[in-house]
């Protein structure tokens, strides 16, 4: 409640005071800056997310007790963003990282930065915090200059104080007053120069790890509130099932059961203790009779099903005139539905309080959009819903987090006064999280007589890759209520960063090309954002094709890529990965192969190249990637070990998707409901070594890291298997059966 009140107060203050203090303070701080624009002019564009939340004190607060608080609308999802953003703030504020209180995504406290997604946290929030911090430092220096009667340039900021050359010093807390930081940011900041960094560019240890390895409360799963109850949802047995009959008496009579909650097809049980709720959930599930319908497609003919769902075509890229002269390579690639598969099933805690406001703790990627969706579902005003991010198990995109938050909110709304914790069961996570969409990719490419790619036709069939909230219709609980909300219709949108068409346009120099997204608005299985969106499958298809074209041109795959690549930063990662791998023309031992791949994520973010060595057992079909060497350029480095950790993880996760993973279903139900029916990478198959080489780009914009490896790693696996066996695999995942079938008789 206090937090909500604070927010209202802050907003009221913002609305009430306007920007008078702004021009005055900043005029002093940036004596060289031009005069502020006249009121009617449109506001200048500000760096990163500052453009959306323009006041410095939305991001940084300095209090008279000399405490420093930094706010981000982005969330720690296990990617280490809390540490990297803290480093940026500490650097520009000239404060030690451990001296900063760092507040992440919270609708009552932080800026609204939408979703923590798309590897954009460093570009958006990192850039905003960096500029805000530099401007706060400048304001503090200017204030100290006034008090000391010296020029700001004579002063330096250090350890939460401003120091003069004559030994005088004054703390930040003594310098701030009133609305001093409640000013709009300026478009330009006096950023620290790379050579002077104390904290940025260093491998600061992650601030969250000590608690996680010692058993401190670190996750929303660990949140324990006074009087908290435990709930479990009984989900329908299949996506289209409706609840026909329910005898809830037996479940209600079980020990510790507080309540059975039913709202249409939404069914849940609330207990005093967690295992009591689990036991009652099982009893309730056994007592429920569901009407099921066959609404799922035939998995065996999925590519044809996808083509049949096409309703619209978007042009992603077009240049020159396509031709079929010269040597032609044609191929069709597929990617199945795949899960996020967080090790900890989704969890949330919600509390409907006596004053009619609702608190929700969630590992959502977007506290503000989630708040909107939950408010709509419960017909509550948005300002009465407060969503606070707490870490969950790894995220990897739009998983069950928002749905679990909605479950908790709906249950809490029916038993006001008691905090309610909901955690999904494993089979619920596997069956009900939104999947990464199945895709179909067709390529037809030609080589001219110089061995250069002359023509490139690429067609992909895919759903949208984002059905995030949005409206309440994005939430399972809202769809299952007696008065159900419908999902928003999906729309085809072609954008620079792409969606299903992410990375569909090859970055290579190709004079004649056409790239089309055949858009499927209907979703026979519920889908949404999985790490890299369409970039995973598109890069797999493109980079597999590039290797085949190199073979046709009798060129080395690395040289072939370089001969079609102008961008110097792309060339640099390709050359570095090849060099560190020891890429040469030497023959590999029998059943061993090497593969190479490259992509610039979204064609506008991080550059990543990767070389792999893989071993294939023809008799069993088992593939193991033995050695991986990658090179990444994600712009200016804030935490090199964070980049390494994310890149290693992206590579291994992509190897897992590529070798093992596909959602299985019959015409009615999802049948891959646990780790034995949906296997993933295990330690026995982990490589011997994974190397990440980082190219330093001091002074360049942050490009983000988290998703850069997904596509290239998949293609490098495919290319290594091709090199080892002589067989090209087109259908993901490369299961043992598929490998055996491909190499059988070879």
């Amino acid at each position, binding site marked *: 409640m206090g937090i909500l009140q604070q927010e209202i107060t802050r907003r009221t203050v913002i609305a009430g005071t306007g920007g008078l203090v702004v021009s005055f303070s900043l005029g002093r701080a940036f004596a060289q800056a031009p005069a502020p624009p006249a009121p009617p002019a449109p506001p200048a564009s500000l760096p990163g997310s500052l453009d959306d939340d323009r006041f410095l004190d939305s991001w940084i607060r300095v209090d008279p007790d000399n405490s420093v608080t930094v706010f981000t609308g982005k969330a720690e999802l296990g990617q*280490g963003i809390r540490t990297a953003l803290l480093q940026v703030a500490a650097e520009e504020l000239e404060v030690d990282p451990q001296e900063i209180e760092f507040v992440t995504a919270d609708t009552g406290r932080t800026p609204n930065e939408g979703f923590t997604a798309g590897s954009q946290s460093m570009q958006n929030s990192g850039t905003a915090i960096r500029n805000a911090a530099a401007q706060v430092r400048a304001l503090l220096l200017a204030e100290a200059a006034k008090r000391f009667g010296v020029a700001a340039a004579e002063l330096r900021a250090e350890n939460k104080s401003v120091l003069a050359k004559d030994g005088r010093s004054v703390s930040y807390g003594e310098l701030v007053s009133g609305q001093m930081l409640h000013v709009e940011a300026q478009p330009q900041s006096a950023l620290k120069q790379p050579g002077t960094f104390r904290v940025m560019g260093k*491998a600061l240890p992650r601030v969250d790890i000590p608690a996680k*390895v010692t*058993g401190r409360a670190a996750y929303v799963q660990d949140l324990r509130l006074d009087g908290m109850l435990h709930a479990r949802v009984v989900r329908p047995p299949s996506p289209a099932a409706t609840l026909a009959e329910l005898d809830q008496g037996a479940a209600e009579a079980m020990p510790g059961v507080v309540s059975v909650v039913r709202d249409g097809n939404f069914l849940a049980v609330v207990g005093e203790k*967690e295992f009591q709720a689990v036991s009652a959930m099982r009893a309730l599930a056994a007592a429920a009779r569901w009407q099921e319908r066959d609404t799922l497609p035939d998995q065996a003919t999925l590519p044809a099903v996808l083509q049949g769902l096409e309703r619209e075509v978007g042009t992603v890229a077009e240049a020159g005139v396509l031709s079929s002269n010269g040597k032609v390579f044609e191929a069709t690639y597929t990617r199945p539905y795949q899960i996020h598969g*967080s090790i*900890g099933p989704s969890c949330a805690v919600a509390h409907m309080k006596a004053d009619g406001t609702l608190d929700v703790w969630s590992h959502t990627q977007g506290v503000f959009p989630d708040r909107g969706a939950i408010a709509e579902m419960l017909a509550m005003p948005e300002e009465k819903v407060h969503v606070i991010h707490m870490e969950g198990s790894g995220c990897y995109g739009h998983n069950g987090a928002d749905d679990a938050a909605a479950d908790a909110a709906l249950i809490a709304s029916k038993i006001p006064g008691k905090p309610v914790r909901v*955690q999904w069961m494993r089979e619920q996570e596997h069956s009900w999280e939104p999947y990464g969409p199945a895709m179909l990719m067709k390529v037809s490419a030609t080589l001219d007589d110089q061995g250069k790619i002359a023509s490139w036709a690429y067609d992909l069939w895919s759903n949208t890759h984002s059905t995030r909230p949005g409206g309440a219709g994005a939430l399972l609980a809202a769809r299952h209520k007696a008065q159900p909300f419908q999902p928003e219709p999906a729309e085809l949108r072609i954008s620079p960063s792409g969606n299903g068409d992410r990375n569909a346009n090859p970055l290579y120099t190709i004079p004649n090309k056409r790239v089309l997204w055949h858009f499927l608005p209907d979703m026979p299985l519920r889908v949404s954002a999985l790490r890299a969106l369409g970039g995973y499958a598109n890069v797999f298809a493109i980079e597999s094709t590039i290797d085949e074209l190199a073979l046709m041109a009798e060129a080395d795959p690395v040289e072939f890529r370089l001969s079609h690549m102008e961008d110097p930063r792309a060339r640099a990662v390709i050359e570095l990965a090849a060099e560190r791998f020891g890429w040469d023309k030497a023959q590999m031992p029998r059943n061993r192969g090497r593969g190479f791949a490259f992509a610039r994520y979204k064609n506008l973010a991080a550059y990543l190249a990767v070389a792999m060595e893989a071993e294939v057992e023809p008799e069993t079909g088992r593939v193991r990637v033995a050695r991986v060497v990658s090179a990444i350029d994600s712009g200016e480095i804030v935490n090199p070990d964070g980049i390494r950790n994310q890149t*290693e993880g992206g590579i291994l996760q992509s190897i897992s998707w590529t070798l093992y993973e596909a959602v299985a279903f019959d015409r009615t139900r999802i049948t891959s409901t646990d780790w034995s029916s949906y296997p993933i990478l295990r330690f026995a198959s982990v490589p011997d*070594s994974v190397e990440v080489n980082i190219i330093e780009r001091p002074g360049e914009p942050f490009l983000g890291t988290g998703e850069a490896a997904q596509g290239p790693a998949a293609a490098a696996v495919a290319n290594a298997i091709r090199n080892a066996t002589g067989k090209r695999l087109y259908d993901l995942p490369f299961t043992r059966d598929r490998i055996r079938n491909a190499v059988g008789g070879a």
Partner: protein
Amino acid sequence: MSISLTVNGRPHQVDVDPATPLLYVLRDDLALNGAKYGCGLGQCGSCTVVVDGEAVLSCMVPVMLLEGREITTIEGLGTIEEPGPLQQAFIELQAAQCGYCIPGMMMSAHALLRRNARPSDAEIREALATNLCRCGTHMRILAAIRRAGELMQAASLPKADKGRAG
């Protein structure tokens, strides 16, 4: 029904249904965060604890079987202020992304390192056969366990030897 348990060297009396899996007793009755619910099926290892020296999946064991046995969770390996060798190694090598699977990994490793402080890479992989990681932190987990073995050995050496080794 009242059951006596020894967790991290401390005795506890809990009043629970004897069929309750240990995991729920640790989390719900004893408010310990280390063991995590991952699958409830014995497939992922995130609930791993050590019982009488052996790695055990706490989501699969009814609490009634554990009377009189020594249960260790990561809370028993050290604290933020005084981390034990495994915790120290995982922090030193930054062997976590989301970290949710890590306590289970550490408990599997704890059982291994008690038997064998210098395990081979193959022995470590074998000890982690039932532990799943989704973030792809595997390389760091392997390295951290090797490092923990070194730290344990160094700690068990007499001081004079440590001086020579250093």
